């Protein structure tokens, strides 16, 4: 058990945004998080990353309480890719990816060749080699997303929290990023909107109105009835003649 949340909740001005979440993330798995807009996926991720303090319950990473752990130590374990993170600074792609090394550096322990190697590898993994010197403002939305992912990878975490990592990506890069995340020997929690992509995760958690309403193997969780109840759409199952895999097709209810 790498990450464990017990009775986790966060409320603001008396309104519960996330409540009663019990979740145990297993070593090495890719856990998909699905749910409608505003169901609390991003908030849950921020709580799991420890950058927002829960108002009830607790998060433990490798048995240690996340709250109260020095930020630096937490960031060596957990990397968080935000749903949106923009800058007006004229930073280059390499600068942005190098930020991922922040938790591993101190003023007395400066940049080393090893850090250079990690950054190069992260750029290669996200197919962003050759972009090192481009300035942030000149990147397309998908390129920005890939740089953010490279930054998270450069953090060399044991747990990756990815909030809609396929946002803005073309289909080829969506698939290659998901494959990369699945193949990495890292545990990851991934918020996704494409339910067919969620089928490819090891387990899926479904959020609805701030609660984790279901958690388990994708085929058990993503049923037509539950999709109808949570998303308000009708889902039918289609079989791909090439390999017999079933996928969803959606219709307005």
């Amino acid at each position, binding site marked *: 058990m790498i990450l464990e949340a017990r009775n986790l909740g966060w409320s603001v001005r008396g309104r519960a945004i996330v409540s009663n979440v019990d979740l145990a993330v297993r070593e090495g798995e890719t856990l998909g998080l699905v749910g409608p807009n505003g169901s609390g996926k991003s908030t849950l991720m921020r709580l799991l*990353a420890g950058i927002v303090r829960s108002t009830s319950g607790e998060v433990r990473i490798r048995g240690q309480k996340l709250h109260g752990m020095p930020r630096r130590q937490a960031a060596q374990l957990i*990397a968080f890719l935000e749903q949106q993170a923009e800058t007006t600074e004229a930073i280059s792609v390499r*600068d942005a990816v190098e930020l991922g090394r922040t938790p591993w550096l101190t003023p007395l322990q400066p940049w080393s060749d090893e850090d250079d190697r990690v950054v190069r590898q992260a750029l290669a993994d996200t197919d962003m080699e050759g972009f090192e010197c481009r300035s942030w403002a000149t990147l397309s939305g998908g390129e920005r997303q890939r740089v953010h992912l490279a930054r998270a990878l450069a953090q060399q975490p044991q747990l990756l929290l990815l909030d809609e990592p396929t946002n803005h990506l073309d289909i080829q890069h969506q698939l290659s990023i998901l494959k990369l995340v699945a193949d990495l020997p890292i545990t990851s929690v991934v918020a996704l909107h494409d339910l067919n992509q969620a089928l490819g995760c090891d387990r899926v958690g479904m959020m609805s109105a701030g609660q984790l309403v279901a958690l388990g193997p994708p085929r058990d969780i993503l049923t037509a009835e539950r999709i109808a109840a949570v998303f308000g759409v009708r889902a039918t199952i289609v079989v791909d003649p090439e390999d017999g895999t079933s996928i969803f097709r959606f219709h307005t209810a």
Partner: protein
Amino acid sequence: MNFCSARPTRASRLGRGAMGAAALFAAVLAGTCIGETPIPVLTVLQTLANKIFGAAHVVDPIDVGIIWNYRLPRAIVAACCGAGLAVSGMVLQSLLRNALADPYLLGISAGASTGAVAVTVAGLGAGAVSMSLGAFIGAVTAFLMVALLARAAGGGVTLRGTGQIVLAGIAGSQLFNALTSFIITKSANAEQARGIMFWLLGNLSGARWPDVWLAVPVAIVGLGACIWYARALDAFSFGAESAASLGVPVRVVQVVLIGLTALVTAVMVSIVGSIGFVGLVIPHAARFLVGVRHGRLGPATALIGAVFLIAADVLSRTIVPGQVLPIGVITALVGAPAFALILVRGRRRS
């Protein structure tokens, strides 16, 4: 310019540091030589050798007086104020992610002027408190009020509340500016009002050695903190939440750095008045020249700020013969077109 070139080696970093130190020394030297009565560089160097290393060069005692008692401390104080204000502005711009942030954003210059006016015009402290001390107390009071207001307004529930700090600063500045105007219109005579006006725009003519001993350590501590936290400041590029997820203790860094910039600014303002423009524009100029990474940006900002303020001070003393202009007038008059030039050239380059 390509900021993506190979990482500087230790030797090239040392080389750059040495070049920076040399530029600073040259600027201080120039600030000491140039004036209404120009003094040859050799005389200045000989005087320095006599005073510092106990050498026995023969120098005109009048020159020695001008150099040692007036121009040298003045140039050093100018360098420290330029560096301190520019670095403070840079830190606030990075932390608050606001390109328009400057060291006076947090109500410091407004508070300082209220303090100075309260002492000189309203006679607060009954002569026991100097104008500088009054200004410093006013500056710190205003900053504390702004900080409390920002906190009360929820500047920290999530990591997104930097807007509250800016708004609280505006409210605080308005309040203290109104207080200053109130005191001036109620009790100042025309002569006092003119003197205060001059002080508000910045004035280095009172700078002596005791000011140097105050300004130098403060400027060094300010720059040192900025270098120590350089990576943390870099991590704020994508906002405070992103910095937190990169392992930066956001609250601690914000409190330490905002507190320190407030202190540095308050000290500088109480020595020389509120010199505008430097804290806002020098950091941007430095970004154009060396890029946005704080490990390089901090020292570059400090150096440019120091050299710029020495130059502005020299101009303010020499541009109108027989008259010293407020340095704030020069920083804006010279600085604005210079900055416009950098903007235009930077645009062409990218």
